């Protein structure tokens, strides 16, 4: 029986890894690397490994986002068609586990029991929820990370969820954050939104603009393209600041990360992908 704990680069799964460090001695930690994670995530994983005292296995998708983007001919992943999670997270994980009997530790917190984490449909994988069993909630998670001396990933100053840099679950203010912190990644996300894979080969960019689903007009962020979104930067950030203020007032002595979380939920309370952002 293998014991595995998936780490997404977000706070919950990181806290769970720390929490289990001394409880499950032969735990295997893994991270499904889409190749499109934020630089902050990679850096945080290094820090986390130190705390855990053992390396985190990087499960690399054999076929990266660019491959699937071409196979789906520029049809972007979306909440309705979440092929990114399927192809780049779940499949690689199931391949990595093979047919081994395994217990998977899932970082759903006690205060979000109605959320559905990734629970494999494969019969050899059994899911357990230690935070729910031990009644550890949002504050508990922050405490664990604090006590371990690792804190939060650096991206928490502008984004509350781990995942790909172009993740469509990002809230508007987070997109602005990406444009500010990682202009190069933002530019790539803009190109992908226009169904263009930049520098696909010696022939230059690969353009799927005239391929299937072209009339769908899908945009990463609902209702507008990224250039349009960034054009509204001031408006978005003003609203965001107001939301921050409101969230800060609503409860006393709220940690900053919770304030950011609530402010962003104000923007869109769509529940993030439970595979990528636990």
């Amino acid at each position, binding site marked *: 029986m293998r014991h595995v704990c998936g780490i997404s680069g977000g706070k919950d799964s990181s806290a769970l890894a720390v929490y289990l460090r001394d409880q499950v001695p032969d735990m295997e930690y893994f991270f499904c690397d889409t190749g499109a994670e934020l630089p902050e995530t990679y*850096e945080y994983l*290094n820090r986390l*490994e*130190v705390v855990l*005292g*053992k*390396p985190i296995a990087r499960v690399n998708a*054999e*076929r990266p986002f660019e*491959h699937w983007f*071409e*196979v789906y*001919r520029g049809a972007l992943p979306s909440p309705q068609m979440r092929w990114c999670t399927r192809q780049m997270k779940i499949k690689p994980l199931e391949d990595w586990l093979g047919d081994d009997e395994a217990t998977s530790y899932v970082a759903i917190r006690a205060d979000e029991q109605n959320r559905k984490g990734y629970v494999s449909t494969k019969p050899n994988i059994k899911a357990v929820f230690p935070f729910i069993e031990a009644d550890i909630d949002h504050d508990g998670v922050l405490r664990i990370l604090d006590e371990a*001396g690792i804190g939060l990933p650096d991206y928490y100053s502008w984004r509350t969820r781990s995942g790909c840099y172009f993740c469509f679950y990002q809230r508007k203010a987070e997109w602005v954050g990406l444009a500010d912190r990682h202009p190069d990644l933002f530019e790539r996300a803009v190109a992908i939104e226009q169904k263009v894979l930049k520098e*696909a*080969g*010696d*022939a*230059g960019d*690969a353009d799927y603009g005239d391929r299937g689903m072209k009339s769908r007009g899908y945009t990463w962020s609902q209702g507008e393209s990224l250039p349009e979104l960034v054009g509204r930067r001031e408006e978005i950030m003003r609203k965001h600041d107001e939301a921050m203020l409101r969230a800060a007032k609503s409860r006393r002595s709220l940690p900053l990360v919770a304030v950011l979380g609530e402010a962003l939920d104000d923007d869109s309370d769509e529940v993030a992908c439970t595979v990528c952002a636990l």
Partner: protein
Amino acid sequence: MTEESSLFDLRRPRERFARAVNIERDAGTVQALTSFLPVGRALNVVDRVMTSLGAGRSESAFAVTGPYGSGKSSLALLLDALLAPQASQEFELARSLVQGASPATFHRVQQARGDHGAQGLLRCFVTAQREPVSQTVLRALIAGLEKVELSDQLVELRRHALDMRTATSVETREIVNLIAHVASIRPLVLLIDEFGKSLEAVAGSGATAAADLFLLQELAERSITAPYAVVTLQHLAIGDYATELGSRERREWAKVQGRFEELSYVEGQAQTLQLIAAAFEPLQDEAAEAAVSGWSERAARSSAALGLPQLDADLLAGAWPLHPTALVVLPDLVQRYGQNERTLFSFLAAPGTASVPEWLQATAWNAQEPPVVRLHQVYDYFVAPATAMSSYSAAATRWVEIDTRIRDARGLGESQLRVLKAVGLLNLVAAGGELRASRSLVGWAMADGAPGTETVDAVEQRLRELEALGLLSWRAFSDEYRVWHGSDFDLRTAVERVREQLKQVPVPEILERNAPLVSVVAARHSHATATLRAFACRWTSNRIEHSALDADTAVDGLVLFAVGGPIVLNAETEDSRPVVVLEFGEAADLVGAAREAEALRVLLEEAPADDWVIRRELAERHAEARAALDVEIDRNVQRLGTRKGFYTLEEGQLLQQPVDQTLSGLVSDICDRAYALAPVVRNELLNRHQLSSQAAKARRELLEALLRSPHRETLGLQGFGPEVAMYRAVLSSTGIHRRRSDGSWEIGSPADAAGESLTPVWTHMLEMLSSQGKRLRVSDVFERLAAPPFGLREGVAPVLLTCVLQSNAGEVALYEHGTFKAGLTPDLLERLVRNPQFFELRHFRADAGARRHLLEEYADALAHLPGGRRSVDPSVVGIVSALVRFINALPEYGRRTADLSSAAVALRQVVLRATEPDVLLFEDIPRVLGVVGEGRGDRTNLRQELLPALQSLRGAYPGLLCTVREDLVKATGAFTSDVRVELEQRADPLEGKVLDPRLATLVKAMSAADLDDDAWLEYVAMMVANTPPSSWRDADLARYRTNVAQLGAAFRRLEALTLEARAAANGRGFSAVLVTITQPDGRDTSTLVRVQDAHRHALDRLVAAALEEAQDVVGSSAEARDALLAVLAAPTGSVGTEVQDDPGSTSTQQKAEA
């Protein structure tokens, strides 16, 4: 008279009204004529017909048009009697009727009879049936001749007429001639009652219509010169029977209509009211008469008060039991909405559901208030059972709406329903005016004492309820209730307007929109070749333009349905797929049907979304028009055979094709010729353009197996899945995947008889590749193979291409997005299948001469790399693939570092940047390596330059790890050869005591378990530099060196402090020494030895003594010291110790070797 007896005993309708007149049955009888009321319209018709007969040399064709039940058949009886022999009873009766009413008219009758008065004229009167008009006319002629005694000549003509009736085909002109001939002997009147039936038959017949219409036209025209008159009786104008037809037919009908003088047989309201009153027998009971008379007085007063002064007491008494409102709606109602089976007189006189006689039978007398028939009963008789009217008129629209609303009203009480029907009926005959459904009128009309409508107040209450239910709307400004919301849509005008507009729209466009064609399958061919082939069908104009030949890639050919006249070819095409042209010619009927359907479709789009009445009507008519169009298309397709209208389009020429087969048969023949070189692939899942998701998955597995295990039996595929079936169909049965003589498996060109059908495609694919000196787009290859004569399916193409690539691996280079790809991989193929337009192929000939030598030197160098492949295929693609793979296999550091020989850096750069394999091998690499010598027999120095550069590249990362280790050793002052064990042991006591997070990181990393030595080193390096060394840039190395030096120093300081602290805690000082002993076999054992200060003095004395004694044995004091160490360290062999003194922030290192 008792109240129990039925009203029928009091009053009953006159006998003659009780059944409809039939001209053939009733002619010659007197009863039917006795009560005939010779009113104005009847005399008018008699006048016109007789005048024309008497005058000669004028057109004598009349179309008498009047609603059902208006007495047209009685009129026919009158005409019949007026033409009868002088002495006959019916003539006598008719004479008295007409002469009494209008002597002038009777004068004209006499003139028309002329010399033939005694015998009478020939009365050729019949009732029409659904049959060709020629039959009806002959029937009438024969009937007329049978009524009278005949001369021999007429007997002969009658026999002639009988012959014609049974003949299979009769010329129109012959019939007209015969009639004219008969008329010249004895003038005749040809009268056809219910001629509407004939007209409907003509309108519906299509084929014989032209002849029938021509006959009518001829009959009318000949009546100018021949002494006969034609009279037709029908309830619509002739042209109105043609509303469903195409425009061309409507023009023909208009011509006929123009030949006939139209006589309207409509009575004014007053006359009709008189007729109704005359329909009842007088009252049979004096008391009742008095009661009815009193009622009629009251009713007349009420009528006048409501603005209906024409209803005087006498009329109302005569028309009892009709309520004044029921009476007054009848004339308009029957005129506008009369139906064949529901006439005014059948209502009044015929037994049957909801009719007046039935009501009379069922109703009891009441002297105080004589019972009456009210509006809702009239509604029940005329409106409720009728089917939808077929006409574009506004009246019909209103009818449909009111009928539908009342029919659909659910859950109403009896009384509510009665009131609703009354309002609906009033709406039907009047909108506005005195007969409008005003509150007072409805109240008066419907207050009958029955439950729910006891009084006027009760009726008004019902009206308000219906209004609240939304079934009635109250128009306060005009004081009227409406069931009918009314449509402002003028359908008739709109249809005409759109028809006019559509004349500008190309016919094929209209046909494409209303009757899109489905593909035709080449059934026989498909069955024989196991490939389903279909041709797309489309409408075009007879002028075939380029756009008509543009077809989707998924079809195997085109069938053009060309409409509009002889075909004119106006286009050329590169597309080699076969084209069939069907020449429909003008096909005016088809075009007309299409325009009609389109007009209704357009109107349906235009019609206001909320005007459900008009939408419903349009939808129905549109459906009918579509069905009619389909019939026309079928007829025209069938007609093609006789028109010799099959063509193929070959090399810009139209070639006529035999017509003795179906379209599918023709298309099969064409496919046999056009796709003669198509491979036979017996797998339905794969052999198609669009694969199902299941088939696509199976193909993916097949392709992966082709790459993964080409040398295994069945490619390693097992079981009975679809991928195995595909393997058998394409690869195994065709000999492409086969066993070699040595028992191993290989992929090669198709073999065996079974593979024969694949050979042309295979060969052509190779020819395409090798004939080009440049790159070839994969999608172009697929497109070429999909075209004739191969017709290869998109499902099969990638499989065959993969086999071709596998069996010619060294010669064909593959590019994705312009970048050379070293070898096929499953993910690459997955993308290629999806987007062949982004992939290119290029063939490289097997080289000879100088190039061949160079290639061999490359292969030699690559084969000599440590750990490299033993043999490398000396082909351009083989070498480049090996080089690209070599570079790609380097860790990122190796691909980036500049810390290499300049030749290695240059080599790496040209390989990474190369776009063309041959340029890379024969130009770029020789250039950067400074290769001299032409080859050609001599060897160049390529090999001796290339090998070191490759080795340098390969050694870069191991070299980096060496540096990493050295720096770590230096920084931590590690002094044993087993750095890892030493550092692990040294880190152990520090764990948990480190505050500086970066140092803690290092300490943690040093004690990481479960890793081999290299992985441990990489892990430590990553923790120091924050990125794994495999992806380092040169700057990362520099940072590592700085970091590790600082951290190492800190590590040692902390280590010292810890030891000191421990000593202090023990209360006794000590010093620590790490003793490492190297065994002769190279194994090290290290031990950290702590020497307590308390023991030091004693030990020192012992050693000094021992040294002194040893010096005596070996000579010098230095030699004595070494010898003692060696003896202490081991029983045998060499002894090395590295001694590090502790404590101390600086350390001295002593080394002793035995």
